[in-house]
């Protein structure tokens, strides 16, 4: 590694001009307008951050755009951003991902010369130059033995020794050898076996950082909170490598959208005022981020009691959020969209053995059987599909194919939870458990 300090920004999953999903109030025009250009805005902020921090290069570790979108705006924004970085003398290492494969990158005409497209599956290790000096090297990090990975043109060293060559950046592929997304064990294996200083992880990793002696693996996570699973501050990472090899990683929040899932527990003693106060306090406790323009808050209220029951009324949700929005200081000037999810208590009444206990304590044998079967199922979705495939005719019906494709998009745990809640609703009431003929 050079004695000079090295700075770069690492971003993954920017998905320029890709559109957000799981928006509860997508009909509101103000929210819609704010969300339409969320990913583009995040991309602009990344470019501006590169210039402001005077970084040496920008590393895009996959899914910079979504080729399936066929978005012209994305191409134009990417080209413009790269030209801006070219004017500032900043190099760009663009790694194709699942959404932006190599042909898609190659189809973008007029990319400036500061952009290096690095496909970890085919490209040889490459050097990042600045003013005729090698700043860093980029190499693929595949499922290879330590011997092969160390023969990258630089002498290999074991962990703990000081390096002689430039800072080495490894690129992890989006899929491991078994065709599945790489696990943390994969990453740790790559990190320990490869002679690299920094391993850039792509999506579908969330924001993660795995540190080993003298080396670190990092994924900045999605740059924009586009899906319902992207909670918390989102953005890119500013990587600063000191002369003594110390690597510091800081979050650069660039996402204009912030999603938060806020859990509240209510009981028989809870009141509407307490609930509103609690919600306001939770909103105030959210750390303010300048880049955030839209707050998408999912309130998950769990419990029982009068207040919980009253929230099931048709207009209760609207009234609750109307009351919450009376205090405009809580959203800190951002557009806030709220969504309410009501969850019953997990605890089921135990099977009554004492005759003196009330009827409410008796669990329906139907419910017991239902939950027993539910607990036995590893995946309800797979079970449904396998059952349908067993009785389906050949060729498969269009809906069966569609449902199979949907199986990869749905949250299997949510399906199980939904079935559990429904089952409890259906059979959680009165029972004639003692009924025997």
């Amino acid at each position, binding site marked *: 590694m050079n004695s000079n300090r090295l700075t770069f920004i690492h971003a993954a999953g920017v998905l320029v*001009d890709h559109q957000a999903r799981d928006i509860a109030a997508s009909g509101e025009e103000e929210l819609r307008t704010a969300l339409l250009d969320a990913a583009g805005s995040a991309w602009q902020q990344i470019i501006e951050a590169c210039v402001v921090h005077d970084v040496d290069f920008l590393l895009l570790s996959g899914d910079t755009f979504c080729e399936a979108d*066929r978005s*012209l705006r994305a191409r134009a924004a990417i080209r413009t951003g790269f030209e801006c970085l070219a004017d500032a003398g900043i190099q760009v290492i663009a790694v194709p991902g699942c959404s932006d494969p190599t042909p898609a990158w190659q189809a973008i005409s*007029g990319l400036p010369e500061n952009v290096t497209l690095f496909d970890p599956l085919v490209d040889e290790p490459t050097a990042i130059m600045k003013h005729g000096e090698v700043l860093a090297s980029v190499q693929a990090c595949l499922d290879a033995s330590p011997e092969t990975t160390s023969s990258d043109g630089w002498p290999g060293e074991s962990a703990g020794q000081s390096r002689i060559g430039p800072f080495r950046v490894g690129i992890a592929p989006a899929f491991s050898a078994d065709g599945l997304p790489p696990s943390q064990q994969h990453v740790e294996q790559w990190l320990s076996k490869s002679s690299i200083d920094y391993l850039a992880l792509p999506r579908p990793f969330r924001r993660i950082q795995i540190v080993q002696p003298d080396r670190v693996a990092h994924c900045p996570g999605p740059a924009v909170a586009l899906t319902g699973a992207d909670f918390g501050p989102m953005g890119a990472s500013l990587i600063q490598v000191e002369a003594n090899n110390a690597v510091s990683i800081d979050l650069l929040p660039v996402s204009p959208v912030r999603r938060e899932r806020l859990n509240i527990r209510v009981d028989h003693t809870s009141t509407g005022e307490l609930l509103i106060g609690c919600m306001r306090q939770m909103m105030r406790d959210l750390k303010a981020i300048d880049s955030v323009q839209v707050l998408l808050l999912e309130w998950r209220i769990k419990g029982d009691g009068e207040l919980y029951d009253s929230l099931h009324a048709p207009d209760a949700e609207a009234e609750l959020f109307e009351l919450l929005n009376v205090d405009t200081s809580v959203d800190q000037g951002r557009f806030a969209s709220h969504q309410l999810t009501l969850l019953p208590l997990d605890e089921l009444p135990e099977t009554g053995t004492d005759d003196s206990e009330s009827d409410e304590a008796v669990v329906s044998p*139907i419910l017991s059987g239902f939950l027993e079967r539910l607990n036995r199922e590893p995946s309800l979705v797979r079970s449904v599909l396998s*059952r349908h495939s067993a009785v389906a005719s050949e060729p498969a019906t269009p809906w*069966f194919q569609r449902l199979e494709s949907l199986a990869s*998009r749905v949250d299997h745990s949510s399906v199980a939870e939904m079935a559990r809640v*429904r089952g409890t609703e259906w*059979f959680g009431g009165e029972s004639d458990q003692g009924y025997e003929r």
Partner: protein
Amino acid sequence: MKLERIHVERFGAWQGLDLPVDPAGLSVFYGPNEAGKTTLMRFVRGVLYGFSPDDSGRPVTGDSSRPWGGSVQVQQGPDSLLLRRIGQENSRGLVTARPVDEGSTADDEYEAGALSAALVSNVSETVFDNIFTVGLHELQELATLEADEVAEHIYSLSLGLDGQQLLDQIGEVEAARDEILDPDADTGRLADTWQEVTAIDRQLEQYAGVRKRYEQLVVERGNWEDTIVELKERQYGLEQQFHGHEYMKLAHDPWCKVRDYERELEKLPSLPDFPAQGLSNLQQLQSELAAIRGRRKALRDEARQLKAHAEKIEFDPEFRRYAPALQAFVDQREWIAELIELADHADNQAEELRGQLNQRLMELGDEWSEERLQAVDISHTTGGCLTRRAGEYRSLDARSRNLKRKYRRLSVKFHRRQEQVLRLRQQVGETAIDDAIKQTREELSQLEDLSRLRIRETELTQRKIGLTRQLQRMKIDPTLPQWVYAVFSAMAITGIVIGLIGAVSGLTSNGVAGMAYALLGACCYGLTWALRKHFEGGFEQARRHLQSELDELEKRLEETHMSLAHVAPMISSLRVGEANQQSDPETPTEAPTQADSLIRQVAATRPASEQSEADLVRECLDRLRELEQMVAYEQWVEEKRPALIEMRHRLRDVQRDFGVARQSWCSHLVEQGLDETVDIDEAMTQRDVVGRSALLLQQIGGLEGDAQHARRIVGRFRKRIEEFGHRLQRWDDDYSAPLDILDEWEEELTRLAEARREQRRLRREARVRKRESSKYGARIRRLMAQQDAILVRGGAVSLDEFAERAKLLERRFELQEHLDRAKQELAAVASTDQAMAIVESDLVDYDAQQNEQCLMTIRQELDDVAVDIEDAFENLGRFRRETELLENDSTPARLRFDREQLLSQISGLAEEWFALDWSAHTLEDLRIDFEKNHQPPILSRANEYLQRLSGGRYHNIWTPLGQRSLCVDDIDGNTLMVGNLSSGTREQLFLAIRLALIEHFSNAGVELPVVLDDVLVNFDHERTVAAIEELLRQTRRNQQILFFTCHQHLAEMFRQRGVSTVTLPDRRAGDLLAG
């Protein structure tokens, strides 16, 4: 009840038919087709339940004037009864009964409608018809098992609450699932959303061509940018060429001039010392001298005239003395005018604002005045403080109301339940609740005993009456008619006579014949004695038997009366107690339970006089339920009491806080000078009005102050003007209008200034003229000296000679000047393009016409290139605009946004669908399990019968949950619906179910004969044997069975198993043949 004999007086094809029936076993009746087997079956049912109108339409025999009718002799316990029914119009016949004993006659018959119902144990006709009397038709039809009363035993009782809930939920889940998606019908919300996504995809697909177009545009844009660069380079080259030719054209003329001027200069003489401009100077000097001399004279005259004019101008000395001060006053005129205007304006504004203030004061009320307004503090600090107090006050108010509402709700519920408990406690008295429950249960038990004893008493009384009548009949009515005794006597006498004849003849003539006669006589007598002994002995034995049975009955009746006597007082006391307890209308009632239905059943079996015991049982059960509920309420009350107390304390605290806040709020209002009110909005509104009024008051004060100040200044100013007027000795002027005075003074000052200026000017002019005239003398002398010096330097003595030499010199200067100018021109041309170099030979060979032609050509080319560049820029601009339009088109992004939201919805719906589909299948599995574990006991019992009847082929009968259909599992694991079974198997299934039902009724105390009409005709040999064995097994369980058949082999099969077969008599002969 068991049948002992069937006697048909007249019914259908039968008349005078008398059939004995084995009461303890199986009776097989054989007869050919149309022998009247089915008629007999209908007859038995008709006697028990009444003749149906259909029976009258059947073929009849015998005397049509005689009514329908007949009797059956039945055994009920130890007694035998003759139940007789005679057909009547518009009714089901008159039923009578009488005991079967020796003494009973037709006169002993009594109407026995209730008795006949008791004999069939209140089993309805439908049940009897479908279960106990079965023909081949009934056995082949499932519908005969689906009558409500029958099906109730087979199907509906299997559900229970959980089963019904499961069954209902399956339907609801499937409906909910199909509402989201029905894959087969391609309907549902998921399908609709999917179609919306498809529609958006189609719209997005249209943008695929746009992307190609965009790439083309980008390429085209690059091409045009390259074209522009090329054109600009070409334009630059042409411009360079054009510039060269232009340069040549410009440089050629100056170069020619320089060359000509240099040649002429070489020809002129050189005069280096000749004074430059000498000739003109001389001429100028001479003319100047003449002019100066005339001028000096004119100046002297002018100076004298001016001095005279200046002396004529005069001024007012006092006005001139105070002119600076007066000017100072005049300079302040605009300011004073503004002050006057300002004062007037302020007065107007103040007047207007005061009107508004008065209106606001009227709005605030009579107690509000300007002084009070001034006293109110309307600063932001107090405003913020008031708002904060209002917030606290409002918050506490809301909290107090909320808590009060909750407390009221809980309190009402608490007190309602407490009142219910207290009311029940009052009813119970001082007895402990557990004791009361125990006591009520004991009472219930006693009531049940009483009911049981009542039933027993009724039954024993009935039987006693029957036996008594039977015994009476036996006493009165001899068993055998008199002619029988006559026959017996004749036979005995004949036997004695023949025996005597035999003895005489044996002793006298022939011993053998005598012995034969004697033996014949002995036989006759013996037979007669035996017959008499037989009939009379049976009659006596029966009477003794009846007597002993009657004794036994009386003994049991006595015991029953004693038991009743023991129980009745307790029940009476209970009735009294119950009567004292008025049922509480507010006591919550619950849904009828199984106990209620039991009570109803018990009550239904009792005559009206015994309904009170049933009511008592119901009341006891109600009371028991109320007591148990009271225990639950008491527990609830005890659990909720601390919560209620705690809530009351909290409410009191909150109300106290609220009172403090209200007091603080009111005192704060008073402190701020506002009216005291508890209405926050009213207070805030008043404060707002007061604040605005106070501001108005402040504005009025400010305006009035400004006006006064301005007027003071104007007054002082007017006083000073008046003083100065008096100094100027102008006593008659009007100083109340200072501005008019100032205007007058300003005019006078202007006039004074103008006069003084004019005087000074005239004097100055005079002095100037004088000085100038004195200067002209010296100048004339100087000019003369200059003239002489010039002539000397030009080498001339006269002015003419000097003029000749001056012309030559002038020409030389002119040429030199032209030459310099030409050289400058040439240098200027050269300096325009320093990079341009020209060779002199080119200038020599320069052809202007040719050069002009070249310039024209290049200009033309340049114009063409400029047009091309303009076109190129236009095209570039067009492509840029188009690409920008495409880049900035947000429609695809909006479509993709909508698509993503729809996909989110689809994911949500898919999750719901997967959950519901899994739930639906799981509930279906649960339903199957439930079916297995909750089949009706009738079917479980029928399983065993079917297994035996089918030789083990079929082992399980079950009914799907909530349906009225039957399924059968065979040994191969196949499940078959009833419709899929062979006719023989189906008959075996229905026979098995009926046998199970009969067993069920038998276990419930219902003892009725079973009448089967050729039900085995479709069975194969093996299963027929199994069925006969099963029927025999039934008879061993003390079940009476009447089996009718028209098949000889069946009768034979029964006969082989020791069952006697009765061959039905020929209807015409009416005889009875026993097989």
